[in-house]
């Protein structure tokens, strides 16, 4: 129970920090927007092509944005020298990770929801009919991205060249998330939509495995 209350307190802190400046959210939204527009310039898809490739490009944009957005997650604590006090304040360091990854998932989801209408308009893909399933895929995918990303940003924050290192560590690790969520989204946004439950289950399994690994090894990531 201490874990839950600690997590709740830390999550409130993460959200408060972000909503005071809204730095992360603004930059991420703009970044995804820029990438989506550039993609469309680079390939100028027809309606059929955008149905086929659009969701993959959206997920790629999300992954790129996440690998930048997750940078400050532990860097900020390090710059302000607050990591050791955080560690002292909670009984289980997993609470720190849990709070950060929930916050990151929420930030990602907010940006995705803000981006979705623009994506639908730019790529001519109606997203409303399958919105609930799409949101489920976005949630499970973003959760996976945040779990792996939070863990790896704790690693990269302690190295040199950290800004470049995080995408290099994170993006290959997220290959399964990209493959599965892009495929599931493509079949959801098809003219004859299909819900690929196997893919959705796979995303949940990915989240579960990495959450368990983080729970087991998280405390070592924060060792001084």
């Amino acid at each position: 129970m201490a874990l839950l209350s600690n997590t709740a307190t830390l999550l409130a802190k993460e959200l408060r920090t972000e909503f005071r400046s809204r730095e992360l959210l603004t930059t991420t939204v703009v970044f995804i927007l820029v990438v989506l527009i550039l993609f469309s310039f680079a390939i100028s898809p027809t309606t059929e092509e955008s149905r086929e490739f659009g969701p993959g490009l959206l997920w790629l944009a999300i992954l790129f944005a996440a690998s930048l957005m997750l940078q400050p997650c532990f860097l900020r604590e390090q710059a302000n020298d607050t990591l050791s006090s955080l560690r002292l304040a909670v009984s289980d360091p997993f609470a720190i990770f849990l709070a950060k990854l929930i916050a990151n998932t929420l930030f990602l989801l907010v940006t995705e929801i803000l981006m979705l209408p623009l994506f639908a308009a730019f790529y001519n893909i109606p997203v409303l009919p399958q919105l609930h399933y799409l949101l489920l895929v976005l949630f499970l995918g973003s959760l996976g991205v945040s779990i792996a990303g939070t863990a790896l940003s704790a690693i990269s924050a302690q190295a040199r060249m950290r800004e470049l290192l995080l995408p290099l560590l994170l993006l290959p690790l997220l290959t399964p998330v990209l493959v599965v969520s892009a495929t599931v989204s493509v079949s959801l946004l098809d003219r004859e939509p299909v819900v690929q439950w196997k893919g959705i289950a796979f995303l949940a399994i990915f989240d579960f495995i990495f959450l368990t690994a983080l729970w087991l090894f998280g405390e070592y990531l924060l060792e001084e």
Partner: protein
Amino acid sequence: MGKRIVFGVAAVLLVVAAAYANFFVAPTERTMGLIQRIFYFHAATAWAGETTLFVCFVANLLYIWKRNPKYDWLGVTCAEVGLVCITVVLITGPIWAHPVWGIWWTWDARLTSTFVLWLLYISYLLLRSLIEEPDRRALLSALFGVFAFLDVPLVFFSIRWWRTQHPAPVIMGGSGSGLDPTMNRVFFFNVFVMHLFAAFLIVERYILEKMRHDVDLLQREAEAQ
């Protein structure tokens, strides 16, 4: 020292013997012809690389648990040797694929997951080069190694279930299924030789890593005085 030389010479001689077996002992495959002979080398190196990276994963776990620098040395050693094996696999594969399939590369489950595996261990070594302090480097890279290894089956199955358009190549369907008995013997001889050769590289690289550590220690002592 003597033992190491004997081991090294034996490993190299066995690699030569394996090459001889591949070219002259194994019968020529009916449809693919000569080029199929690269299979023995290609698949055996892949197996050796996978074993080595598994040892790397175990060493990473042991380091996190025991904090003995020996496991860190073993970890980096196996990552490097494993990476060399995977590189060889990624080079020999297309050499074989081009005449047989007509293409250098296909985004098939096995090819893609091997490539992602290669990328992950490149990142692992990159991470190591970017952390100065030895204890921190050892711990953080061990943790990344564990995450990376956990990812490999997920990559494999995600691509196998959602991205493979063609059925997997027939030649390696099941270990040695449909292989001629001589081919089978040659293949497993290659597997043995490649494992032995990887073990030789691991021993040498491990000793080098240990010496590096000792020099580092001496240097620090000298600076402290």
